[in-house]
C-alpha cells in the first residue's frame, strides 16, 4: 500500500470537520473494503481517520414505534445475531448471513457495508483499465467487455456496474433510512434515494457529500417485515457476491398477498426496488404461480441486457418469484 498517515477520531464533530476540509482524508471503520481498494490502488487517501472509537455508534436498539436503529459501527455479525432483528426482520439477518465470510462479518461495519464499492473487475483492476468510476472520463471497459456480472437496469454507457451489498437490498425493500450527520447537522436519507444510478457521473456511488458521516440506519416497523426472506444466487454456494438476489417481505390476507415489498441485488448500480411488481402483486393468490409470475414481469419491461447477461432477466424473475413464495409461506 501507498504511505498515509493515521489518526483516531474521538469526537464526531471534529471528524466531520476534518473530512469536510480535506478531500484526501478517508474515514476507516472495519476497513475490509477500503483496504482492498487501497491495495488495488482504486483508493489512495493520504490520511485515514479511524472512527471506531466514536461513542454510541455501535448499538442496536428497538425504537418506541417498533422500528430498529442500527448504529453505523455495529458489525454485520452483531446485527445478524441480534434477536430483535432476527424476529422482526429476518430478511435483514439473512441478507447479512449470506454475505462475505464469518471473519469479514466480524470486521465489517454496517455503515461501511452500504458504502462498499462495486466488484466490477475493471474497476478493481490494478492495471488502470478504462473505468469512469475509477478515473472519470477514461471510459467503461465493461460496457463492451466481459459483462456477465453487470447491470440489467438503469445502466449508462458510462458505467454498467452493480452494487455489491446484500443488506442494502433488504434495507431498500423495507424503506429504511440512512441517518447522516454532516456540516449542517443531522438528516435522514431514504434508503431508495441513498445510492445513485451511474448516469454520466459513475464515480459517485451515493448522495453523500464531503463531511458526511453515517451514524445509523433506521428500519421502520413494517407489518411485512416478519414474513420476509432474502434469496441469493451465486456462482458458488457460499462466500460469493450475488449473480442476482431478492429481498421480499409479505403481508397476507388469507392466501392472497395483502402487501409486498420487493427489491433486487446484482441487477443495477443501486438496490433495485420492484415498485411496479409490488403494486401488481397486491391481491394475487400465493398459490397462483402464473399470476405471481405475470405480476413480477411488470417490473422487467424496462430491463436492458448487456452482451453477456441476458440470462439475468429470466433468472431475476425466478428469484423474485421464489423469494415472494418463501416470504409468503412465513406469513
Amino acid at each position, binding site marked *: *500500500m*501507498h*504511505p*498515509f*498517515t*493515521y*489518526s*483516531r*477520531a*474521538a469526537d464526531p464533530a*471534529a471528524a466531520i470537520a*476534518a473530512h469536510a476540509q480535506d478531500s484526501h482524508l478517508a474515514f*476507516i471503520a*472495519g*476497513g*475490509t473494503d477500503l*483496504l*482492498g481498494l487501497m*491495495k488495488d490502488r482504486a483508493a489512495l487517501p493520504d490520511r*485515514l*481517520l*479511524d472512527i*471506531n472509537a466514536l461513542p454510541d455508534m455501535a448499538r442496536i436498539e428497538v425504537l418506541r414505534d417498533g422500528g430498529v436503529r442500527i448504529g453505523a459501527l455495529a458489525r454485520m*455479525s452483531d446485527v*445478524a*445475531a441480534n*434477536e430483535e432483528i*432476527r*424476529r422482526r426482520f*429476518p430478511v435483514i*439477518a*439473512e441478507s447479512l*448471513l*449470506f454475505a*462475505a*465470510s*464469518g*471473519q*469479514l462479518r*466480524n*470486521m465489517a461495519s454496517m455503515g461501511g457495508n452500504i458504502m462498499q464499492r462495486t466488484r466490477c473487475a475493471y474497476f478493481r483492476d490494478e492495471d488502470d483499465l478504462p473505468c469512469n468510476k475509477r478515473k472519470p472520463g477514461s471510459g467503461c471497459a465493461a460496457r463492451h467487455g466481459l459483462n456477465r456480472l453487470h447491470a440489467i437496469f438503469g445502466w449508462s454507457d458510462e458505467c454498467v456496474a452493480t452494487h455489491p451489498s446484500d443488506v442494502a437490498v433488504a434495507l431498500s425493500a423495507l424503506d429504511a433510512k440512512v441517518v447522516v450527520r454532516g456540516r449542517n447537522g443531522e438528516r435522514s436519507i431514504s434508503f431508495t434515494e441513498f445510492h445513485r444510478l451511474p448516469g454520466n457521473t459513475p464515480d459517485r456511488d451515493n448522495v453523500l457529500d464531503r463531511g458526511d458521516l453515517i451514524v445509523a440506519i433506521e428500519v421502520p416497523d413494517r407489518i411485512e417485515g*416478519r414474513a420476509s426472506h432474502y434469496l441469493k444466487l451465486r456462482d458458488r*454456494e*457460499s*462466500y460469493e457476491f450475488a449473480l442476482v438476489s431478492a429481498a421480499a417481505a409479505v403481508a397476507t390476507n388469507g392466501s392472497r398477498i395483502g402487501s409486498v415489498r420487493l427489491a433486487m441485488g446484482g441487477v443495477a448500480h443501486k438496490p433495485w426496488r420492484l415498485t411496479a411488481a409490488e403494486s401488481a402483486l397486491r391481491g394475487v393468490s400465493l398459490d397462483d404461480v402464473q399470476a405471481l409470475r405475470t405480476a413480477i414481469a411488470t417490473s422487467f419491461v424496462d430491463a436492458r441486457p448487456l452482451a453477456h447477461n441476458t440470462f439475468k432477466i429470466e433468472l431475476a424473475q425466478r428469484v423474485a418469484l421464489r423469494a415472494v413464495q418463501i416470504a409468503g409461506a412465513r406469513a
Partner: protein
Amino acid sequence: MSESDTEERQGDGRVHLSMMVNGALRSLKVEPRMTLLDALREELGLTGPKKSCDRGECGACTVHIEGRRVLSCMTLAVMHEGKQITTIEGLERDGRLHPLQEAFIEHDGFQCGFCTSGQIMSALAMIQEAKAGWPSAATADVTKRFAPADLSEAEIRERMSGNLCRCSCYPNIVDAVVDATRRS
C-alpha cells in the same frame, strides 16, 4: 487533530503500538500502512498466520482479536492498540496441543498445511459463535434460537466457507471440527 497524528509526523512515520499477543504485552513500531498480518509475521516473528491472497478471500491469515475471528490481512496493525490478539501459536498449553489441533492431526485435516492455522483459528471461534446462538446462512429459520446441537455438517461447511483449502481437504476438516465440537 489527535495526538497520534502529531506523533507519527515526526521521524520516520512509524508509530508506537502495544498489543497483548498470545497473552504477552508486545510493543512495536510500525508504519500506519502495515497490516496486522505483516506486523505479526515480520515484526513479531509469528509466522503461523499465513499471507496468501492478501485480499480477504482465502482465510489463511485468520487470527482472533478479543476472541473474535478476523482476517489479519484486511486490517491495519495501528487500529489494534491495546487489543488482545491470539494466533495459532497461542493455542498450546505447556507443550500440549489444543484439542482442535489434535483433531486436525487425527483426521488428516490437511495436506500441505498452508491453510491449516487459519482453518483452526476460524473453527475455534466458529464453535464459540454457535454456542452463543448465532445463526448462519445454512440455518433454516433465523427467527429461532440456534442451539449448539444444531451444528450439522452443512452448518460447519457454511460457517467455514471463508477458509479455502487448495488441497481440498474439506471432508477431513469437517470431520475434525465435528469431532472437536463433540469433545468440547
